[in-house]
């Protein structure tokens, strides 16, 4: 059997992932600073190719005060049921019920209080309630997969949901995303904005996934994986996961007094 050169296989993608990882290791060896974030252009993730800027970002060494402030949210922006994704419909969604909790902090470790956390995820079969998701897995009439809450005085968030399933996507042939929950977070500065994804420990799909592997720094990548915490599990009810989040941002946001 000869390989069809028109079909982008996992082997090709995996080789590119490996190449990027080795290039990064080489950079570190030559004294480069560790890079916690993915490069904007990362070829194994094919959608990035035509969508990432090729020019270097223009560094604003002295952000304006407006950029060091940010949108605020309050009790009117959420409702009580928003943080429980299992109670938003008439019936219960299918799947492994779980609670995810954690603390949102800035790089000085100060809690990010009263800010909005938004999440979205596939259902337990790996299907999004979205028109364009064509994965032939069942929709769950009792699950939209959307939640939001405000962080408390310690910067904590908590969601009750079900564990999302892995799902196929069309990056390459036989591409499957590891199970994940999408997170959107606001800090006290617009420049601290973060959209990211939380993964589950021990997922065998990690090494095949160009989106997770776009974080070429191994320690940084491990920060995207939640911890199973038995003390957070509740008897006869739900499994508990902990995932803490640290928002990046210009140095000026670390020394400015929190509001």
């Amino acid at each position, binding site marked *: 059997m000869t390989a069809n050169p028109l079909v982008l296989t996992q082997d090709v993608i995996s080789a590119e992932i490996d190449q990027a990882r080795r290039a990064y290791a080489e950079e570190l060896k030559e004294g480069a600073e560790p890079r916690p974030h993915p490069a904007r252009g990362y070829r194994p993730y094919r959608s990035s190719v035509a969508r990432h800027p090729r020019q270097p970002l223009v560094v604003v060494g002295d952000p304006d005060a407006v950029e060091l402030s940010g949108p605020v949210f309050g009790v009117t922006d959420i409702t009580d049921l928003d943080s429980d994704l299992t109670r938003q419909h008439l019936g219960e969604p299918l799947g492994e019920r779980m609670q995810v909790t954690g603390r949102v902090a800035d790089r000085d470790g100060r809690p990010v209080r009263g800010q909005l956390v938004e999440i979205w995820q596939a259902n337990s079969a790996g299907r999004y309630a979205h028109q364009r998701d064509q994965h032939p897995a069942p929709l769950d009439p009792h699950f939209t997969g959307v939640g939001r809450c405000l962080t408390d005085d310690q910067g904590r968030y908590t969601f009750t949901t079900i564990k999302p399933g892995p799902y196929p996507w069309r990056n390459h042939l036989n591409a499957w995303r590891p199970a994940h929950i999408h997170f959107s977070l606001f800090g006290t500065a617009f420049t601290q904005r973060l959209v990211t994804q939380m993964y589950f420990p021990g997922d065998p799909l990690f090494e095949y996934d160009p989106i997770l592997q776009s974080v070429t720094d191994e320690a940084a990548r491990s920060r995207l994986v939640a911890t199973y915490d038995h003390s957070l599990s509740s008897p006869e009810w739900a499994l508990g996961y902990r995932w803490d989040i640290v928002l990046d941002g210009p140095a000026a946001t*670390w020394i400015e007094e929190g509001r």
Partner: protein
Amino acid sequence: MTFLPTPSQTVGPFYGYALPFTGGGNIAPAGEPGTITVHGQVFDGAGAPVPDALLEFWQPAPDGSRTGAPGSLRRDAVTGAVVGRTGVEFTGFGRVATDADGRYVLRTLPPGGVPYISVCVFARGLLHHLFTRAYLPHLTDPATEPLLRSLPEHRRATLLAVREREGVHRFDVRLQDDGVHEETVFLAFE
């Protein structure tokens, strides 16, 4: 001691029930005199419109206050539906998903104290969001604005909205040079 940041990941294509909200582009209260429209399209490196981008906007109130206000996503406590901003406080925050033709429309009040609206771009294919600024031409003196002064003419032009008519400005976002149009200047804050 500093803590290590959580890495960014793409917003992906399926944020539709989670992030956009009704009225997300209407920062200005309905009927407010002096409301301006900023609109445009997002394009990729092939010059094709990006139909699944999400743009966020942040700006001071016309009086220059930068504190914002809660209530951008104000919800009905009974149904959970978005009921819109109160129109009394100026929240300063907008969020718009591009349509099938890559278009967005923002209706807002002119920012006070700075001549621009801060923009944050998310999309499938962007592993890390992009920051830029939409400078409003009638408020901007490029000769005194430090960021604009530091840029060569052809790069600077990508940050300046284009006045179409009174109160209506066009600001396109080009994620990459498509061979004809210059790539938008994107910013890193240090």
